[in-house]
């Protein structure tokens, strides 16, 4: 065996350095941050955040040059198991931008809390690296490695407030359930490999057509269930609210946007490249999960009094909407489903991050996470009040703010499919839109219509980094809502679907 391998002449693979430049920049940045942190005086630790921000933005540069220069798909690296195409690039840009905004949000929180800044940013960069890799992964192994790379640092980040019991609880819960999910996922993947003989998603896809064996059915269910944990779909969502509430708020923002999107990206890639032939198995499964996720998430969100918990459940329910188009991907609406999910992820990131940014800004004054602490915000902080209105209205799906177009796309995919089950799901989603509006409006009601609790009307003065984060997210929410063509164009994804011959 070994002798035969050695007999082959070994040629170094040609490596397309440009294609993996974003990852390389991040890796270099991680080492840089780690090293500088060692020698940096405690009083100058604030520089870590700035440096991390630059690393994120620096990694965006090759993403942009790749998008501008490379018209064709770069899949020569690693035998088509790691592909740089439009789909990958737009998602990489999303993850890096989200990473940048989260750095802006965490800056002051970490400085003031005296937390371990250098370590935090290193972990965050590692997690973002995992996400950036996820966007390109086209192989079970690289998908799994990327998933772990992005999850493991996040477990620690969730428990970052070391002396806070709730934060520890958040970390432990997230860790235990995350590891369990990884196990389930890996188990399913091993079945997939065992029955198809390959870990490359396109090859699995080719092998999985026609009648499935019992083991393959099991494999599909396990793989989808494993991802369902990551995207906190009901009934695999139980970790999310506790983790979101306990973790430091910037980390919660990171988890509910970046990590969740990465989970969706993984699910998308695996479903579209590997499991599209098994849609009779995962179609109904995802249908039920989508319907349950949006309904249960909404019902519980309605009863929350803590705003972070409410947003946690709302993000569970938004996950249901993102999942919704995938339920019909096998019934002739493959392309519009893919587009709907990608668009949703892009726009959702802006609005949800923005909402968290306002919460962080307001909590600096009120020191409270209760919805009632937002009472009368509009009177003493009109800017933040209006911004929160924009973000929550967008999350509720009201045109012309961001998410309406994403919701429209999701509905469109369902109705494009045209089956009666798709229509039923569309009606369920329509009803859920109204329920969701109920709790978003409750926060707005506090902001606009309630008196200020304790009569404390000292103005809120968020630091400039948070203003910058608010500016980016609000700009994205409004501009993408009015001119959705800007991103819809990116979501026209011939590459990924082209691989399927759709």
């Amino acid at each position: 065996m070994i002798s035969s391998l050695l007999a082959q002449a070994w040629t170094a693979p040609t490596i397309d350095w440009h294609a993996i430049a974003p990852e390389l920049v991040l890796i270099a940045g991680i080492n840089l941050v780690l090293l500088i942190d060692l020698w940096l005086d405690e009083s100058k630790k604030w520089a870590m955040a700035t440096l991390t921000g630059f690393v994120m933005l620096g990694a965006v540069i090759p993403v942009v040059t790749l998008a501008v220069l490379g018209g064709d798909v770069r899949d020569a690296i690693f035998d088509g198991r790691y592909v740089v195409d439009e789909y990958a690039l737009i998602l990489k840009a999303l993850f890096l931008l989200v990473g940048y905004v989260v750095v802006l949000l965490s800056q002051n929180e970490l400085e003031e809390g005296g937390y371990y800044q250098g370590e935090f940013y290193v972990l965050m960069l590692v997690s973002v690296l995992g996400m950036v890799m996820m966007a390109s992964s086209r192989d079970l192994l690289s998908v799994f490695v990327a998933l772990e790379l992005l999850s493991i640092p996040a477990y620690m980040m969730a428990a970052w407030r070391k002396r806070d019991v709730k934060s520890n609880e958040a970390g432990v819960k997230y860790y235990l359930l995350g590891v369990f999910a990884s196990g389930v996922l890996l188990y399913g993947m091993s079945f997939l490999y065992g029955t198809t003989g390959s870990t490359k998603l396109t090859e699995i896809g080719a092998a999985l057509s026609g009648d499935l064996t019992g083991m393959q059915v099991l494999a599909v269910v396990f793989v989808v269930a494993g991802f369902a944990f990551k995207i906190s779909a009901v009934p695999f969502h139980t970790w999310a609210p506790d983790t979101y509430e306990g973790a430091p708020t910037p980390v919660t923002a990171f988890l509910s946007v970046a990590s969740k999107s990465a989970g969706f990206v993984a699910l998308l890639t695996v479903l579209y490249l590997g499991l599209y032939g098994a849609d009779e198995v995962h179609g109904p499964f995802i249908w039920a999960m989508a319907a349950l996720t949006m309904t249960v998430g909404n019902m519980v969100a309605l009863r929350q009094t803590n705003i972070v918990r409410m947003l946690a459940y709302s993000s569970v329910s938004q996950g249901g909407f993102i999942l919704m188009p995938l339920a019909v991907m096998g019934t002739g609406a493959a392309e519009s489903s893919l587009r709907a999910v990608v668009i949703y992820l892009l726009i959702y990131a802006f609005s949800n991050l923005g909402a968290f940014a306002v919460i962080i800004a307001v909590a600096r004054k009120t020191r409270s996470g209760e919805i009632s602490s937002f009472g009368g915000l509009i009177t003493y902080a009109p800017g933040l009040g209006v911004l929160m209105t924009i973000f929550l209205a967008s999350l509720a799906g009201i045109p012309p703010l961001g998410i309406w177009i994403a919701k429209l796309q999701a509905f469109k995919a369902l109705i494009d499919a045209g089956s009666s089950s798709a229509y039923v799901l569309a009606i369920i989603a329509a009803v859920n839109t109204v329920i969701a509006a109920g709790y978003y409006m409750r926060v707005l009601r506090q902001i606009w219509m309630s008196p200020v609790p304790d009569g404390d009307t000292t103005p809120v003065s968020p630091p400039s980094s948070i203003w910058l984060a608010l500016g980016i997210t609000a700009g994205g929410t409004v501009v993408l809502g009015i001119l959705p063509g800007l991103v819809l164009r990116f979501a026209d994804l011939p590459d990924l679907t082209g691989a399927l011959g759709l």
Partner: protein
Amino acid sequence: MQTITNDTWLLTVGTFLPLVGVLLMMFVPASEEKTHKQIGILTSAVTAAVGVYTLLRFDFDQSEKLQFFVDSEWITVIKSNYTIGLDGISLPLYFLSMVVTLLVMIYTWDNMPDAGNPKSFIILMLVLQVGMAGSFIAQDLILFFVFFEVVLLPMYFMIGVWGGDDRQYASLKFFLYTMFGSALMLVAFLALFFQTGAASFSFAHLMEAGALIDRDVQIWIFAGMFVGFAVKVPMFPFHTWLPDAHTQAPTQGSVILAAILLKLGTYGFVRIAIPMLPQGAKAWAPVIGILAVIGIIYGALGCLAQTDMKRLIAFSSVAHMGFVMLGISTLTDFGINAALFGMVAHGLITGMLFFVAGSVKHRYHTLEISRLSGMLIQMPRLGWILGFAAMASLGLPGLAGFWGEFPAILSAYNPNFGLSEALFRTLMVVAAIGTVFAAAYLLWLYQRTAFGRPNPEFEQGAHHPVGAGVNDEHHDVDLHDVTKIEWIAWTPFLIAIVVFGVYPQLMFGVMDPAVSLLIERVGAGIP
């Protein structure tokens, strides 16, 4: 569909101009209340001037064609364009929305609701105006949907922040009802899009292709749109948000709600649901007719039971919109003309009534009908205006209300496209009885509030109400007659009510060519 592409900038400017005012106001601190009011009036005045110019440029001889037509790319991926145009059906409503906003803005000069903060209030009104005007010019389903929804949030905040005691409940109810309707409506829109070959969202395309859809499918899609528009109208049994919203809303909000927002629903029926789904419309017409007539009777009975003046007017809206919907349900040229006329007339008259109600509240600090009396003695001019508006509202010939109600009832005698004559003639009779009720509740309202001796608790100069047990607030009673600002804001309404009452052809002439074209198209779609 024939179009005229002259002055393509006109509609876009007219619709989005209020946003310039919004932008300006964002840079003025909230404490400079007077400046905000000035900017508000100025912006809406310029907008209305653009509206007047639109009227001048409009080719009335070709009012069946879409004029000032623009069709440029917007969201190409989902095949939705920025398509706008104005024809005889939308022109009156488009112009009405501009005028009403201006007059309401003028009224705000002296009558800012108690919650204060004119900056936010005026910004919201301007945004509202964009949504309203935009809905009437949109010729693309997605564009229409966006404008239709833009209206939602500003109105929610207007009711919720500046409204009466029960404002939070009322505003949320308004919001959730409308949201529910529009979610189903969106599903219906998308279904229509895919059933017509997923080629385009433009009205022109959907009107052609929609008629070819299977009858059963049309009925289902129509059902979705029906819920969306019926909530907005509002039709019985989706009307329950209206009395709350109207009663709690500040005067400005009530006026805009009555004058324009409700019309978005009926306009949606005429512009979208009926021409795009002719067979669905025919199948649903009897249901619409029956619900409309139930609305007429129910609204009237509701009025008779009210003790609050504003709530009474709100219920009368349910009844009046019933007449409008009855006219639409006949699918006749005559009926839809009457409905469109009724929409404008109801906007003017009920808007006027809400203005009066607001001023009554401002002076007496109550709208309890039983506590008001002798208005004609204390404030003769206000009393007379109330009487005038009440007469117009009950459909007195010679005033605008008549031309909305009477032809609508008449059109039910002979419904179009083989709809059951027996049914519609029955509806006609019931609706006619409804007009008697309308006279009853309006005259009764007028008699109780304006006639008789003034209530001693509101005697001029009395500083503390005698029967203060009912009302803990100790407001000084200061009963002054109609102020100058009120005259400026109200006179155009009063003049329009008379002018359209005496010479209805002014509006019928504009609408009729467009309506006959519409009916022709519907007829072509019904085998």
